[in-house]
């Protein structure tokens, strides 16, 4: 197969990915929003729409902004197939993004290439399936597992899953990119030390931190010294 055939084959694949992705998102959306009404019919109590409206104004707007920011920032990392799957299955920051980045780096796939698109989709699909299986097994074994998982001795381990993940990822990414990492790391450390209340909004602080890192990377790239 020559390069032209490969390109047209991949473009056809990508077109269908968007079609299937949109359909899957739309069906999931209808099911998720419809589920409370179906459950309401079973329980004999439909949702209180006025309370839902008040709640949405109180906390939904903030999350809507967060979702928009997540979409804009993470979609380029995930590609088409990975993007649709990641937004359907959730847990982006604490799982899907690091997982896709790790897989991508492991096979040295470059952004915007067919290889990157395929690896990202495989990675997110695998990750989502593993989560579904682990949670399903966990729910089946909830009663025997509960004392183990909630034992006070093991609690610090499960409270620190995300620091463990980001510690490992930090070494992996910082070691080859110290020039890019220094400024965002120092800025964030300083900000969180001086304004500790910001720790409650860490997911929002990813945006300025990322912007600083990209700015530094751009300057280094322009100078031709970025790794």
């Amino acid at each position, binding site marked *: 197969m020559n390069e032209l055939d490969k390109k047209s084959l991949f473009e056809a694949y990508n077109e269908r990915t968007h079609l299937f992705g949109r359909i899957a998102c739309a069906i999931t959306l209808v099911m998720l929003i419809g589920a409370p009404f179906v459950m309401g019919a079973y329980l004999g109590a439909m949702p*209180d729409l006025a309370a839902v409206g008040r709640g949405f104004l109180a906390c939904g707007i903030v999350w809507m902004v967060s979702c928009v920011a997540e979409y804009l920032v993470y979609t380029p990392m995930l590609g088409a197939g990975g993007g649709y799957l990641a937004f359907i299955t959730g847990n982006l920051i604490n*799982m899907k993004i690091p997982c896709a980045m790790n897989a991508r780096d492991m096979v040295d796939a470059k952004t915007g290439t067919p290889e990157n698109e395929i690896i990202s989709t495989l990675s997110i699909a695998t990750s989502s399936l593993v989560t579904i299986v682990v949670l399903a097994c966990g729910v089946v074994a909830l009663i025997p597992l509960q004392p183990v998982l909630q034992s006070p*001795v093991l609690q610090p381990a499960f409270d*620190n899953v995300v620091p463990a993940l980001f510690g490992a990822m930090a070494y992996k990414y910082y070691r080859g990119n110290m020039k890019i990492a220094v400024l965002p790391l120092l800025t964030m450390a300083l900000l969180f*030390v001086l304004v500790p209340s910001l720790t409650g909004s860490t997911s929002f*602080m990813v945006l300025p931190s990322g912007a600083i890192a*990209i700015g530094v990377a751009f300057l280094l790239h322009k100078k031709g010294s970025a790794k």
Partner: protein
Amino acid sequence: MTILSQLNSPVMYLICGGIIAFVALVCVFFMVRAWRAGVAIGMDKTKMKRAVVSSATFTVLPSVGILLGVIALAGSLGTPWPWLRLSVIGALHYETQVAEAAAEAAGLSGLNATEMTARAFTSIALLMGLCIMWGMILSIFFNKRYLKKLQTPKAGGPSSGGGFGDVAMTAMFIGLVSAYIGSYLGKFVSGEGLFTFAGPWLPLAVAAVAAAVMAVFVWLAEKKNAAWVESFSIAGSMIVAMAAAVVLNLL
């Protein structure tokens, strides 16, 4: 019949399990398509296999952490709904916050089983869905155009498949990691008052242990030619760091 036994009834499991099964099928479908497309365009099967294995090992531990989120919410919302939310669309850090806020909006003093009613539950469930659905909505309407725009090479700029795109993605990820590491430092130094160094130190220590173990894995892969450890390096680092959290907490 208590509200919790209603929320844990087989019908509720059927509704939530059905949606999870659909999403699992979507994942399998996308995975098979991607694999076939990769083979068709001549990608190395070993590379694809490595991506699958590393993603699977990578995911197991965070998934156990997410299971704890299900357990935490199960006490007030029953098991099926948190199971659905954390298997599909939800996020660990998000669900508990929104469920709490939604419970207050539904007229409860907080998220608890004693005040829970069927109407409050369905309202909370709907609000949890409405708050976090925007990523999917944006994907439906803008994904194709957004990605096309990003992948179109600019005149005179670097072509796709290299150039600044890769550096920008790495930089964005470095930004993400830096924000979290910075927050652990901030909590430790000023969490209990500015520069008191009395805040929680365990997250920072766990991150440091994970980084040190990762360094060992990288050394094994690069200096000892044990490339196979790469697939397990993140999961291995996390296991050791989480075990260290248990030990350090006992000190």
